């Protein structure tokens, strides 16, 4: 496989397949995320990058025996390790009998929402999720630090001109997309709020929301999209999401309990848990959505800059 495009397409298929596997294994929340992230966002990002870097892989002459050796050895160790594993699906394996039963049996009483994954994610292990939000925030800042380009006003006009010429052929799809986008945004909100009862939650909602904006950007051009959502607003939302999440913890400290102890947020523990989970899910949703949009904008902006440079150099090359 020397064609990177095919590789990325197959990666998308692999991701969809593993997501289907997750559904079959009862991990619906994970399948949700994997579908949105693996098949959606990362495939898209890879595509954008391929368009910037070229499509084919160079053939290498030497045979990577060392790599093969390392891989076979590592695989061998892993296979060796599997022999003493509890068999697949056995209910009394240690993994199912030590920590997990408390989540399954008590979470309804202690937290009061039916989706156990959400209650573990947002309450029992809220700090992990906080870390996760910070990871995504870090990635956003990192991508921005690497790719952000200063925009000069006179370039904007040229860019718009290029953009418009590029998608005249997409009339049908533009109309369909215009019909779809409100629906997608609405659906994102549904996922945000329904996370307590079914699969979903802040993270998935954020990704879906971002996907809608990305769709819009792809069809109507970056300049138009930036008019709707400008860069510093997005940064503000990203920071605000992390801060909102953290502040929930700090408020519980101020109320005399431990960090992320939602029980003290309202008069009775279960209501407090509800409030806490609602707030942090919003924090997650805001940060994830804005960071995803930010990442995509930066990639697309970089690409646009490259294109402009190419165009300008072409024009300059022809004129003298």
């Amino acid at each position: 496989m020397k064609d990177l495009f095919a590789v990325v397409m197959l990666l998308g298929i692999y991701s969809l397949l593993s997501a289907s596997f997750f559904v079959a294994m009862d991990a619906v929340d994970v399948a949700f995320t994997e579908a949105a992230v693996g098949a959606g966002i990362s495939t898209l990002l890879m595509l954008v990058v391929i368009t910037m870097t070229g499509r084919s892989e160079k053939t290498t002459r030497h045979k990577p025996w060392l790599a093969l050796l390392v891989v076979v050895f590592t695989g061998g160790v892993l296979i060796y390790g599997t022999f003493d594993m509890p068999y697949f699906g056995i209910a009394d394996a240690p993994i199912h009998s030590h920590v997990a039963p408390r989540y399954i049996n008590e979470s309804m009483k202690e937290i009061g929402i039916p989706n156990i994954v959400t209650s573990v994610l947002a309450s029992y292990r809220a700090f992990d999720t906080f870390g996760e939000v910070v990871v995504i925030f870090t990635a956003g800042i990192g991508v921005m630090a690497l790719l952000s380009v200063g925009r000069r006003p006179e370039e904007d006009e040229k860019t718009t001109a290029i953009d418009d010429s590029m998608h005249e052929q997409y009339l049908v799809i533009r109309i369909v997309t215009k019909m779809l986008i409100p629906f997608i945004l609405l659906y994102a909100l549904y996922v945000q709020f329904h996370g307590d009862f079914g699969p979903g939650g802040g993270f998935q909602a954020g990704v879906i929301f971002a996907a809608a904006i990305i769709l819009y950007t792809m069809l109507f051009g970056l300049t138009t999209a930036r008019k709707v959502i400008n860069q510093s607003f997005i940064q503000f939302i990203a920071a605000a999401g992390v801060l909102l999440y953290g502040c929930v913890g700090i408020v519980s400290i101020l109320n005399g309990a431990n960090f992320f102890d939602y029980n003290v947020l309202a008069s009775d523990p279960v209501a407090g848990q509800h409030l806490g989970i609602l707030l942090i899910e919003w924090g997650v949703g805001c940060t994830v959505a804005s960071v995803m949009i930010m990442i995509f904008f930066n990639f697309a902006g970089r690409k646009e800059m490259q294109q402009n440079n190419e165009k300008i150099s072409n024009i300059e090359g022809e004129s003298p």
Partner: protein
Amino acid sequence: MLIAATLAIFVAMILAIIRGIVGPTLYDRILAVNMFGTKTVLLISLLGFVMGRPEFLDIAIVYALINFISVIGVLRYSDTNKFKHTSADEKPLDKEY
């Protein structure tokens, strides 16, 4: 019946993967991925019914959306100059497999 339909979709998925691997053109692959995506939507909906918890249809909706978005993305970005340029240069490459 549900299980039979699931199996049928599996078969269709495998066919789509083969087309995705074989190619030969860019658009064949996109087509294969698109079809694969639709089939995954159906598979998930069916699995929900097979396992007796049909409330997981949310995931199927997400799949449909994501599928749409990625196809648009592919088309949008396969249209740029550089992409065409390189793919035109290396067309013989496709014949390798």
